[in-house]
């Protein structure tokens, strides 16, 4: 499983519909300070079901919606390759879409069809994909990992093993 495509609209600084088509190998994202790079990482975590505003670097979920635009919702779609079928869905590509409205209501879609949040979580868990997996390393978090105490490290290993 890898990330084929990411589409954002109304999510943080991405007011307009934006698409990133990733390659299977080595993708790099660059740009000036404040241009929106880390917001892309947040968008991936959002689409994968993260419910922690803090890990999306905001105080409340509603602040994820682009400020200053007329459309009052945030929508992120992530398309995952599923050639090896590790996501228990009968299609080679799996697109998960998450929408957040201004009043806080959220909707999830799988390949365009409405689905519940729990169902998405189960599908992703089956393929060991999680929005807060250790394979996602947000900006500045390496320092926290490096300065862990030996007992914190033991706790971390026990959670993984």
């Amino acid at each position, binding site marked *: 499983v890898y990330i084929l495509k990411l589409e954002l609209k109304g999510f943080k600084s991405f007011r307009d519909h934006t698409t990133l088509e990733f390659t299977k190998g080595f993708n790099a994202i660059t740009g000036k300070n404040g241009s929106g790079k880390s917001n892309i*990482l947040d968008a991936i975590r959002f689409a994968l079901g993260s419910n922690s505003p803090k890990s999306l670097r905001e105080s409340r979920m509603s602040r994820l919606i682009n400020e200053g635009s007329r459309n009052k919702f945030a929508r992120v779609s992530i398309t995952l390759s599923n050639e090896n079928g590790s996501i228990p869905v009968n299609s080679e590509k799996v697109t998960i879409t998450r929408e957040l409205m201004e009043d806080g209501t959220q909707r999830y879609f799988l390949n365009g069809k409405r689905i519940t949040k729990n169902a998405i979580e189960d599908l992703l868990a089956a393929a060991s994909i999680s929005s807060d997996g250790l394979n996602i390393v947000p900006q500045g978090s390496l320092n926290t990992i490096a300065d862990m105490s030996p007992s914190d490290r033991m706790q971390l290993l026990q959670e993984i093993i």
Partner: protein
Amino acid sequence: KKEAFIKSFEQIDKRLREIFKQIVDGNAWLELENPDNPFDGGVFLIGQFGDKQPRESASLSGGEKAVLSVAFLMAIQSSYPANFYIFDEIDANLDAEKAEKLGNFLKKWSMSSQIILISLKDTMLSKADKVFGVYEREGVSQVIPLEMSKVSNEQQ
């Protein structure tokens, strides 16, 4: 429970040794504070760079810690290797030499797992198969695919 932990612990330690050697000239490993009763103690993360003495992670330099942490994170993935990796400026503390080495390592690694790397350094960007440039105009972010030759000019 203890046996299962020790077995996994040794596997992670082995992966850490392999990965670290691929990034820099040196060694890294894990040690149990209390080998007889592992859960009564902590886990030490040790790094040895070049011909220097081995040291616990907390008393290494900023750049050394960054390299060691990346190797450790990749070694402890629950499903190994992970489907994809997303790294946000993990090279911020690295000097030119270490950034080059980390870039080479990630290039190799990307043969078996997808990598999405956010970086400001040309050394890293030049190794990628595809580069995205993110721009901001009046508070609105836009993304365009970049040719690597164009990136170097942009960065200046």
